[in-house]
């Protein structure tokens, strides 16, 4: 679970997830464009790649190759571990 909290701890990584939720399956180019144009995050492609690696190791992003292209996909499954530990819905609380 530590990986998960580390992944969320940086605003740029949260913005990456926001953009993937808006449109899943983006190239690195599209992600960088959205970050700079919509969030004012002008980090280098290399820096964004490193953020993506952190998100990938936390299981929140999956990289899939399609032929010669590489796309990034959001995965929400790791978040279940949080709500299982601390239920979000009141009726589930004892």
């Amino acid at each position, binding site marked *: 679970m530590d990986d998960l909290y580390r992944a969320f701890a940086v605003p740029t990584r949260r913005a990456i997830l926001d953009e993937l939720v808006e449109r899943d399956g983006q190239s690195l180019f599209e992600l960088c464009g959205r970050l700079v144009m919509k969030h004012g995050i002008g980090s280098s492609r290399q820096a964004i790649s490193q953020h993506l690696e952190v998100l990938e190791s936390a299981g929140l992003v999956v990289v899939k190759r399609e032929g010669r*292209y590489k796309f990034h996909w959001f995965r929400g499954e790791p978040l279940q571990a949080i709500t299982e530990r601390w239920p979000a819905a009141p009726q589930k609380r004892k």
Partner: protein
Amino acid sequence: MRLNIYSVMVDDQAKALRFYTEVLGFQKKHDIPMGEHSWITVVSAEDPGGTELGLEPDAHPAAKVFKAAMVEDGIPFTSFAVDDIAAEHKRLESLGVRFTQPPVDYGTVTTAVFDDTCGNLIQIAQEKSA
């Protein structure tokens, strides 16, 4: 000094000429045999006297490595202007063109990125009029 030509490096000049004319809608300006390859340029049908686009062979080994790395990360090699990006996206998709990025609205400009089938990604952009 003025800009009269710029180039894309293509894996097959004959295929590229077909794609850039028949699919994208440019017009052939030059097609001059030069030994193994040809000097091929196309121009916009909307501006036939304007800047030419050269379809150059990517024969140098480094060109192929460069192109593959750009494509992997989704980075377009160059960008063309369109008046109606939604219509152009729809038209090109109906012709089987693969988009790695559908039109994305950035406020002042909307861009999309497609595969030119010759080893490059190309961006199209519609600027919002002020």
